[in-house]
């Protein structure tokens, strides 16, 4: 061992055009090996397939949810420039919470984080869904397509569509918080099903030509919207072939402090993220 190291250090000395004294070179060598070992240990310990991915268009409320869950208070936020990765204590262990920016130019980053994701939370702003329906559906379509095309050897992530900001919904009566959530999820579900059906129609409408241009290259065509339902039916989330998609209505209010302990024991009455927490606990 020592002779080997000697040889190595001699070669190092020859290869480096520096005037380095011998003991220094040895120290250098030791440090280098330690750094290399540490580097690989750190890489190896990176746990896979156990993270929560927050996606959704800009201004849906992803970063606000992240700050509420991780810091226990809802900080005000603006459009994100980069991905946030936090550790969320859940079920007595740390779970990675990844917040992907929603801006169209940088949202493609979700593909890098997809292999690690166990849960995808698609955040939708329930108060503006009727205006932004087609934009939201376009992004959701990309996500669904990506999930369907995951290799069969890997487990596909569970998908939750979060009808966020449902405290901002305007309705004639003043309903209780639970029915507000219901209202929001129904509205989001209806709008998204309609928009996704439009997209599916557009992509399946065809010219009846068969033999032309058939070469074996993989196409950039977005699929992932097939249903198990009877043919001719319009798109329904319950019949989606890629797995189960669930809906939950949530809200947060900026500046408010959330007591995590209260929420866990179930008596946090005004916490909009309670449903999300219980859902995450059962799926992680």
């Amino acid at each position, binding site marked *: 061992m020592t002779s080997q190291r000697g040889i190595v250090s001699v070669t190092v000395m020859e290869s480096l055009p*520096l005037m*380095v004294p011998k003991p*220094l070179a040895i120290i250098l060598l030791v*440090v280098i090996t330690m*750094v290399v070992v540490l580097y690989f240990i*750190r890489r190896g*310990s*990176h*746990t896979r397939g*156990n993270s929560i991915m927050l996606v959704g268009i*800009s201004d849906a409320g992803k*970063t606000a949810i992240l700050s509420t869950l*991780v810091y*226990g*208070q809802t*900080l*005000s*936020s*603006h*459009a*994100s*420039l*980069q*991905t*946030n*990765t*936090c*550790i969320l*204590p859940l079920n007595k262990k*740390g*779970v*990675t919470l990844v*917040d992907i*920016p929603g*801006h*169209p*130019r*940088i949202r493609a980053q979700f593909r890098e984080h997809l292999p690690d994701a166990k849960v995808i939370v698609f955040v939708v702003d329930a108060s503006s869904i009727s205006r932004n329906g087609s934009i939201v559906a*376009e992004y959701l379509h990309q996500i669904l397509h990506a999930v369907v095309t995951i290799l069969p050897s890997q487990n596909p992530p569970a998908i939750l569509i979060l009808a966020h900001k449902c405290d901002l919904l305007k309705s004639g009566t003043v309903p209780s918080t639970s029915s507000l959530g219901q209202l929001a999820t129904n509205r989001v579900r209806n709008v998204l099903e309609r928009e996704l059906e*439009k*997209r599916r*129609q*557009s*992509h*399946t*409408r*065809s*010219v*009846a*030509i*068969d*033999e*032309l*241009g*058939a*070469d074996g*290259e993989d*196409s*950039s*065509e977005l699929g992932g919207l097939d249903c198990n339902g009877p043919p001719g039916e319009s798109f329904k989330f319950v019949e989606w072939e890629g797995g189960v998609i669930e809906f939950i209505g949530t809200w947060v209010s900026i500046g408010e402090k959330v007591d995590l302990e209260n929420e866990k024991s179930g008596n946090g009455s005004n916490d909009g993220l309670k449903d999300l927490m219980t859902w995450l606990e059962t799926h992680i």
Partner: protein
Amino acid sequence: MLDHCSIVHKGGIVLWSRSFTPEASQLTSSSSSPVNSLIRDALIEGRVAEEKYEKGGYAVKWTFVNDLELIFVVAYQRILQLTYVDDLLGALKIVFVELFQPFLAAFVASLHAISSSAVVLSMTEATRWNFENALEGWDIAFDKLLKGLENKAAEDRKLRLRPAARPPPTPSPGSSDVDLLPTESQPGTVDEQQIARNVEALKNRLRGRGGTRAPGRGRTRKDPRNGRDSHPNSDSDVAIKHKQKGKVLRRWGDELPSESEMASLDFSYEKLSDQDHHPASNDLEALVDEASRGIRNKDGLYEVRDWEFTNDKAADDVIARALSGSYKESKPAQGSLGTLGSLFARFTGSKVLSEDDLKPVLEGMKQHLMKKNVAKDIAEKVCEGVGESLVGRKVGGFQTTYATVRLALSNSITHILTPKTSTDLLFSIRAKLMSPLTSAQQRMPYSITFVGVNGVGKSTNLSKVCFWLIQNGFRVLIAACDTFRSGAVEQLRVHVRNLSMLSVGGAGDSEGRVELYERGYGKDAAGIAKEAIAYGRDNGFDVVLIDTAGRMQDNEPLMRALAKLVSVNNPDKILFVGEALVGNEAVDQLTKFDRALRDFSGAGTAVAKGRGIDGMLVTKWDTVDDKVGAALSMTYVTGQPIVFVGTGQTYTDLRQLRVANVVEAILSD
């Protein structure tokens, strides 16, 4: 004076913010706040190098602290001339980082958690983050800083008003700095002495650097444009006058050609005798290159293939090679530790990128981009943006400077090229055709206008797009609105004839799938387009493609005519056709077309607000090999996506752009 000031993390969390007027505070709580639009419109799109961002009456200035991933933003009324904003940002940066360094480091680390057990433990201990307590005292410190700078600005103004010889913008030296801060003692936790020290440190730093970056850059940006505007025009005018004198005997087209001449020149109709033999069917095969035909997927949808960049050579680090010389030169000048120290620093991951480190690398990158035919201005801005986002960043592990810069550049180019609006033309056409109508309305066809300078291939690529639409089962009407160039209508007539025969392919009723709407030459293009759209509506066409005459971007009467066409017909898409061969000119063409359309079409009655270009079609793509810089220039200028690229002579030579391929081509050697 100020309206809003905030300190935000790049991940989106606002650490601290304050609005000084009720309107501003109302605005900032909505999603259209100046900070939000700054990030969305400027920072994400790679326009970091710009000096100032203006939005809705506000001017916004910002600065980065890259190692802590913080952005400091100040917004104020645009009409105000606030001289101290740059100083304020600098001072805020230094003081804030100094005061809250440990907290900020912990905060940033928590947003980059790697799930190792140690982090989990520390996190569960400190589940409760108390931002208010942590940032306690900052309000007071901020007040002092602001007041100090405002006082100083007021003093400067007074001095300037008096005919004193003292140059006002230079920071008042030494002792007066401490006096600027209000002396009344505050019960706050912040040490006033420290603030004073920090301000002093900042002053020294600013002085050392030789002032702000503003003036130098402003000058360089203005100069080339002024020059370009004035000189070439006058030159060419003179040249034309000279030429015309020498060409008296030329036969102009104002006398009518004889019948026989017309017949021999018109190739658009086939002679009767030819039709018996169907000689055209042989030619037709030449028009479609079967090998490059698009893919028909399992749903039967005909798709344009993606343009691919094939690179046999291993993607070398060009930049590395280009820079190896200059980069090594700058290295020995590092500190007292010398090479060994920097080596250690490299391995322990504590090397911080400085401006001096980045300068040669960025210069090399700029040269490289320009070699790839990226316009000079754009290459400069992109590299400046990359540099600004890297200064102060720590280089970890075994990364070298150029690898870091290369990665950042590739990210930046990807962001610029990635479309922010949907480029799915088929979907938007179908969405329009399927949208519900009231009984009184009639279904309008989807109209696409092709604009561009002369000879870039508008008509050719219009016919390619037409072929693609026909393959997808749409009925297409082509409106011949190029009423100027001789042969333009005949050219389209030939295309329509070919397409109506080609579109067979087993589809059956190819007849009537494509038609030409022509009204001859010399007429008003806007009127013809309007008639064509009406004709398309009445005869059940799905799409109307409007071909316009090519025009130079500086020719104002023609640009006004184009804007009139746009405002009268309000087409669903305006595609700018540009050639990939264009270099520096791309910037000028696109800015002027976009601006002319916006300025002149707004004046019309039909559309309330002027509208610009919706997308680009880049032609002659096959001629440039990997010098695809025009794509970057064009998308940077307009912020709009490249919808198609034209890659050859046949109808199938239309491709969709894959961003990854273009980035690879730009960065490769």
